[in-house]
């Protein structure tokens, strides 16, 4: 083993957790290698220092607190046995319901659009009658649609424009 391998094995060497042959190899190496020996000695000092970090005690009511909480958990757990089996699937059921709703809406929406396109807007009767009257008047007297327009509106139009210049059309 080289120095690097020796140094990374010093913890196992210290714990005596290696074969006799390997242990002997490291021991001989430490006798001859100053650098590895210093590493070993520094490691021993560190290990001894860690020994002096004393254990602390948990609070006196540690056990009682844990046991009380354990009994509460046990009681909740035994109550849980009476719950219906599907209850544990509650979150999944909620999610499934939302998904079904989304799918249903997305399937119905196109039909609503088609229905809207097929709707024909029919003018009310009064407007329809006015239109028919205007068409008949136009056909019978060879007048333009403008001539069949209500008189008062035509007058206003002429006043505003100063009359139509007849010569423009000839």
């Amino acid at each position, binding site marked *: 083993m080289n120095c690097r391998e020796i*140094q990374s094995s010093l913890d196992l060497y210290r714990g*005596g957790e290696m074969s006799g042959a390997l242990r002997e190899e490291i021991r001989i190496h430490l006798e001859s290698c100053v650098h590895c020996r*210093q590493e070993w000695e520094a490691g021993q000092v560190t290990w001894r*220092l860690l020994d002096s970090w004393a254990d602390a005690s948990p609070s006196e009511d540690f056990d009682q607190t844990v*046991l009380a909480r*354990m009994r509460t958990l046990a009681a909740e757990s035994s109550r849980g046995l009476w719950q219906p089996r599907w209850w544990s699937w509650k979150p999944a059921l909620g999610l499934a319901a939302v998904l079904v709703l989304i799918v249903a809406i997305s399937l119905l929406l196109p039909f609503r659009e088609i229905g809207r396109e097929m709707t024909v807007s029919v003018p009310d009767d009064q407007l329809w009658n006015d239109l028919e009257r205007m068409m008949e008047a136009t056909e019978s007297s060879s007048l333009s649609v403008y001539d069949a327009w209500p008189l008062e509106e035509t007058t206003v139009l002429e006043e505003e424009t100063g009359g139509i210049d007849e010569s423009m059309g000839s």
Partner: protein
Amino acid sequence: MSKAFEDDPDVQLMLRVQGGDEEAFAQILRRYRRPVYNFILRFLQEPGRAEEIAQDVFLKVFQARRSYQPRAKLQTWIFKIATNASLKEIQRRKQSWGLEVPLGPRDEGEAPLEVAVDAHLDLLERLERAEIEVLLKNAMARLPVKERQAILLRKYQGMSYREIAATMSCSEGSVKTYIHRAKHRLQKYLRPKVRPPVSGGAKLSPARVPGESV
């Protein structure tokens, strides 16, 4: 059940807990409360929070009793839960405060502790225990999380590399690296404060021999 663990008295206790034996759970609690609490305390260095988390660890042990399968020592299983709980706390702190290093004691402003360590002298005769603890807490708080876990499990729980690997869910090779780096970092931090012994002061033989319990 794995043959290797069926005679483990702790495993037998846990199997009794599975059967609803509250006294068996109380025995596990009495046996492990101190090591679990101290592991979390040394890791987080916050006594109040360490106690809460240690209590939660035992409640998780109880809650997981039905799914428990004795594939490893009970100690490994309990410390795996403790390790995960400690890591979760570190994550929570990072998210809440942007802190990675726990709020341990600090020695800013204090004179460095110049300790002349002689392998033949007891350290406790040279330093007050409290001073050493402050020194160690500061050094430990500076270690990366994985290295801190590995060295605490090794040093204070006496776990083998295999057990640490099972506890931390990593390979034995990683454990070896974590421990080597952790010791190196600790030495680097402690060296200016602790003068190593004169060369030749420390024995070259390991403290223990193979076959001894770790």
